[in-house]
């Protein structure tokens, strides 16, 4: 930041103290409630600590991590997290983009639609999970089964979505997409409405067709919101827990188990604190790595240096 005429040296000195004063509460909160537990997790992950045990915690080095390395359930959880992110992020983003584009043309009643698409976001995931259990009910009476039956002109065999190892994860993904798309849509819509009309008109004058205008005006104009949306959705998709806990409990056959679910199950249901902590550490490292890679690949414009 350059000095502007009128700014004095006194302002800078005061800024020092004031700066720290203003940032301290938030920083303290982050340190106490995020940094410290993380360090604690590192420590716990090097033991066999069991919740409430009268035995002292004994140091076992990296054994918890070695076990995780060879644990097929944990490997499956990592794969599921990856599949979930790879499925949800593009589909949800494309859906949100499509809806935002459709809402961007001035038309009567557009605001009503916008509200409708956003409504699922207002629902807590735990509630969404409970309702979708009903929607996925097995047998011809289930809502989704009968809808699909109608759509396929009665060629549909009713399925037990949440107990089918191939359909359970997509079922959970669908639930998540339904709940989250509206939020991205609002951000992208705001981004779309921020693209000046002149650019479209200039492109049209230059002879660009609809598709080319989309490619060369819309998408570049949406660059920052899109990047933001992709990164945030990716991070959020790794955290999937509520739906798994309520709808499938990690099953069937580990088809929907996730890292967070296993960490909570180990630490809370089985009292295995050391193991849960090791999972948390692994989880953080992976998410950090992916996020850093994403940020590097998707450098947004006007980034703070």
């Amino acid at each position, binding site marked *: 930041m350059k000095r502007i005429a009128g700014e004095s040296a006194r302002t800078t000195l005061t800024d020092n103290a004031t700066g720290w004063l203003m940032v301290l509460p938030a920083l303290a909160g982050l340190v106490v409630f995020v940094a410290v537990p993380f360090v604690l997790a590192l420590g716990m992950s090097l033991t*066999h600590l*069991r*919740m*409430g*045990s*009268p*035995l002292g915690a004994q140091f076992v080095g990296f054994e918890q991590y070695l076990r995780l390395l060879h644990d*097929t359930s944990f490997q499956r959880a990592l794969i599921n997290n990856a599949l979930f992110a790879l499925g949800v992020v593009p589909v949800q983003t494309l859906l949100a983009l499509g809806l935002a584009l459709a809402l961007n043309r001035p038309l009567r009643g557009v605001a009503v639609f916008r509200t409708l698409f956003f409504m699922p976001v207002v629902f807590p995931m735990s509630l969404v999970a409970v309702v979708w*259990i009903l929607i996925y*009910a*097995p*047998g011809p009476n289930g809502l989704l089964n009968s809808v699909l039956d109608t759509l396929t002109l009665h060629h549909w065999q009713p399925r*037990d979505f949440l*107990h089918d*190892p191939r359909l359970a994860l997509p079922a959970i993904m669908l639930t998540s997409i339904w709940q989250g798309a509206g939020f991205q849509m609002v951000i992208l819509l705001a981004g779309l409405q921020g693209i000046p009309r002149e650019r479209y008109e200039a492109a049209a004058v230059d002879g660009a067709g609809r598709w080319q205008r989309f490619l060369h005006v819309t998408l570049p104009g949406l660059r920052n919101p899109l990047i933001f949306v992709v990164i945030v959705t990716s991070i959020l998709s790794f955290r999937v827990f509520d739906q798994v806990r309520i709808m499938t*409990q*990690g*099953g*069937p*056959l*580990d088809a929907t188990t996730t890292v967070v679910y296993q960490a909570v*199950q180990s630490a*809370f*249901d*089985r*009292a*295995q604190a050391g193991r849960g902590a090791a999972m948390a550490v692994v989880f953080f490292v992976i998410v950090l790595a992916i996020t850093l890679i994403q940020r590097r690949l998707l450098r947004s414009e006007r980034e703070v240096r």
Partner: protein
Amino acid sequence: MRRKSPVSLSRRALLTGLAALPLATMFGGCRGSTSGRSARRPTLEVWAHAGQVGERSTLVRLADSFNSGRRSFAVRLTLLPEGAYNGQLQAAALAGRLPDVFEFDGPYTADYAWMGQLQALDELLPEELREDLLPSILAQGTYDNRLYAVGQYDSGLGLFARRDRLAAVGASVPTAPADAWTVAQFEDLLARVAAASAGKPPLDLKLNYRGEWFTYGFAPALWSAGGGLVSRDTRPLHAAGVLDGSKSISAMRHLQRWIASGRVDPNLDDAAFTAGRVAMSWVGHWEYPRYRQAVGKDLALLPLPDFGTGTRTGAGSWTWGIRAGCRHPEAAAEFLRHLLQTANVLAMSAANGAPPATRSAVARSPLYAPDGPLRLYIEQLARGYALPRPRTPAYPAVTSAFQQTFHAVRDGADVPETLQRAAALIDRDIADNRGYPHREAVRA
């Protein structure tokens, strides 16, 4: 759900909100302190699980009746949701916030006692009372030769059936445990009933339940086949060779086959039996009131099928203990004695259909009279057909592993491999905790 509370809940919430200060909770102190706001006398904190409607309301009534007697203290009852109940208790224990008296699921007795969270009850309960308790109750609550927990009731597990559906296919109805159907007969019966109802699933296994049910309800199948969850008599405790032994595998395979061949109702609405969709329901005593209301006199109670070594069934249920650090254990014991009074045990048994925990109550119970409808449960308990779940501090790992196993097997997993992984999980937990060595003395 009602709670006995000296302070109205919303007033407390408002005050807390205004203060926005860390609220020192009033749980977990056997200090006998007045709550500072309006308690007339010192309060004992009591936690229990929120079970079936009748159970809950009866327990609330018993707490109220205790409080209205002339005593120098009162109890404050809090009902906790049943899901992850043990996890919630452990979380509270970790923070030093266990209540003075708390209910917990019987098989966890060894775990809580090992962790030093319970006080021994031998000195606190009169001898006549202890002699009046059923042997299974005493065995369930004992760890390391000391009594740590007592329950108001034991449990009963069997097959509820609609007589007319069985009669329609000409099935014989076994009444005594010794006459239980063999697994082959049972599967044949399932096929006949299904055929008679155009292929609809004839059996309900409560697949919609969560958590502990699966261990409680289906470990008996393993025992009946000659297998089990962990070694019963040989030390050191281990699961390898038992849980993944050929007998256990065969029992789980039977269950898997029933589900895979469409003999079991998924029961999403928990009404498969009451609505008449299924002919038989594999479930415990707690459904008796509801089933009785739906089916009436046509309701029959049968032993579980025999998987090879005779029918076996489950035992053990919710039990009560006193927190180790509680400094007024006599007061807490007074509450336990109140719960175990014959009239109160009978009231609870009438509400949830469970076998009463004391002999005097059994003698006076219409449900468990020699010609009573639930006599089978007492017979199973008395004659050794009912076995307790493994009494070990490793129980949380054991039950979690088996629940996961059941879900995997239900969804079609390879049975031997799944059982082997579960056995490995359990054995590793035991090894990590150095075999759960016995505690020498209780930390007061």
